[in-house]
């Protein structure tokens, strides 16, 4: 018997019990489809984070007050008091380092914004002129905060798109005065749409000069210092420089944290990898269950066809012929189920982002290969036992079976 012969035989057998074959395959289909789908969700999330962090600028370091670790794990509190980061820290970092291109002291707070009778509570960020380039931000109309705005503590504001729409609607905002806190600020620009990036809605922020923010919030405590390093190769040297300078200013204590985006990326990738592995593992279990379903149905099918086995043996079928016949049926079930599962899983993975916008997906070829070959081996593995059982029936016993 050649391969086409065997395939025709399996087709005949499977087609004679269509519903049962379809239901058995369904187990494999669901298993394979969910493996592909869950891996593509994991891969999609990974790609999404890479893209988003790229959106937020490259070669960026963040200095935040307090000692934390971006690598995970806990540190015992080293001191009861944590020294805050202040404006001068940023100035000195910029002045005394070789590898840092720029250091922006960032204030962040919440304040009431009013225009005529419209008002909303809003995040207000105090930044300098270089912040926009660092974070890849752009204006839709007007201009950014300039160096002279910062130097002369000018009361000017650049509005995020959502803020502008809420306060002004379709009306022109440029040049008008809005009330931020207690004082009037002139609108000099409106941001281009940026969207939500890593949980921060850049469209919902009002940017003002960092010097004005210090006055507005009446504090010198910085939210962070955002640092642009000259090149990606210098990230480590820059981090060392910053630590050295700040520790000297903080009485030798490292009560601050320098985070790099790569480090954050590393942590998130690690978490995502674990999550993907766990999800794929669960999906693989469902594939295994599908395989058990195949074995179950093959056992039933063998039992139903004991007489057929006897007839075939009487006509000259060898044990091997019977083994191949039943094994090819289970392999056909799992391969066909696997193929449908691959198509279904890929289709769901492609379609999912259209229905759930927060769930980016990316189909990876290796997941398709793994799912497909895993399903094939499930078919062989779970098909061998029933097929072997079938092949070992004594012809007389099988012929007499009712």
């Amino acid at each position: 018997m050649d391969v086409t012969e065997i395939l025709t035989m399996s087709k005949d057998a499977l087609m004679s019990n269509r519903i049962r074959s379809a239901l058995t395959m369904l187990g494999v289909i669901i298993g394979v489809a969910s493996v592909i789908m869950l891996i593509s969700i994991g891969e999609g999330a990974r790609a999404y984070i890479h893209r988003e962090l790229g959106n937020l600028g490259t070669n960026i370091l963040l200095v935040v007050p307090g000692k934390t670790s971006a690598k995970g794990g806990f540190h015992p509190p080293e001191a009861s008091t944590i020294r805050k980061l202040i404006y001068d820290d940023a100035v000195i970092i910029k002045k005394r380092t070789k590898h840092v291109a720029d250091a922006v002291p960032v204030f962040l707070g919440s304040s009431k914004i009013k225009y005529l009778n419209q008002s909303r509570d809003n995040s207000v960020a105090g930044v300098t002129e270089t912040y926009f380039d660092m974070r890849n931000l752009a204006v839709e109309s007007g201009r950014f905060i300039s160096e002279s705005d910062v130097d002369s503590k000018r009361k000017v504001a650049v509005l995020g798109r959502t803020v502008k729409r809420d306060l002004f609607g379709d009306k022109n905002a440029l040049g008008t005065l809005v009330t931020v806190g207690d004082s009037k600020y002139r609108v000099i620009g409106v941001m281009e749409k940026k969207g939500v990036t890593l949980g921060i809605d850049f469209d919902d922020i009002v940017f003002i000069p960092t010097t004005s923010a210090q006055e507005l919030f009446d504090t010198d405590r910085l939210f962070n210092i955002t640092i642009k390093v000259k090149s990606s190769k210098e990230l480590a040297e820059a981090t060392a420089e910053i630590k050295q300078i700040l520790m000297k200013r903080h009485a030798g204590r490292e009560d601050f944290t320098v985070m790099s985006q790569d480090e954050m990326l590393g942590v998130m990738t690690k978490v995502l990898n674990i999550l993907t592995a766990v999800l794929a593992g669960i999906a693989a279990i469902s594939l295994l269950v599908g395989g058990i379903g195949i074995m179950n149905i093959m056992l039933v099918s063998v039992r139903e066809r004991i007489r057929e086995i006897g007839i075939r043996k009487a006509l000259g079928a060898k044990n091997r012929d019977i083994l191949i016949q039943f094994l090819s049926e289970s392999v056909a079930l799992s391969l066909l189920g696997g193929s449908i599962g691959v198509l279904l899983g890929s289709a769901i993975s492609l379609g999912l982002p259209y229905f759930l916008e927060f769930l980016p997906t990316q189909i990876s070829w290796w997941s398709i290969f793994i799912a497909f070959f895993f399903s094939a081996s499930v078919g062989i593995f779970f098909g061998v036992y029933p097929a072997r059982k079938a092949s070992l029936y004594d012809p007389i016993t099988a012929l007499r079976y009712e």
Partner: protein
Amino acid sequence: MIVLKDVRKSYVLPKVTVEVLRGIDMEVAEKEFMAIMGPSGSGKSTLLHIIGCLDRPTSGTYMLFGVDVSRKTDNELAELRNRKLGFVFQSFNLLPRFPAWKNVELPLLYSGVHATERKQKALEILAKVGLSHRAEHYSNELSGGEQQRVAIARALINNPAIILADEPTGNLDSRSGKEIMEIFKGLNKEGVTIILVTHEKEIAEQAGRTITIKDGMCQGGCY
């Protein structure tokens, strides 16, 4: 061609050992038409299965075509059944999933004959038993006599030396039974050895020789 010497067959059941055949000595010559008679439970079917290489004797020797069958492996026996022997059963034993011609070609599948040749041969043999018009029919669309003719066609397709029939007319009306017996007689005239198990005297009388089995032993006609 067939020589049995002191062939015994016993089945070991949980509590007792049942001796079905208790020392059969017999010979069958080439081109013979032989009937094996005996009441039910006499062991005549078991004897036929042993002659047909579907079963092995517990002890004794069985020489088929001058070769001791007990020395052959299961695969060699399967090959023997496939190429030299043809079986016809009381209950026809056709596969209901297949049309008549597919049932007929089944033995050729296991002797590695190509599909187109198989179908051609199957149709030829079906014509020989007068069932060309039934080739595409399934067994539930055929009468008992027709089914048995399909089964005979299946037994004949590899040009076997011996046809073994276990109560071939047992499930048929007398007219169909006669037709089947005519086919067997015709085949025997062409040179096929026929061994037929029956408990009906009229059937056995049509054979060239009759042996009688009772309680697993030969009552007469074995030589």
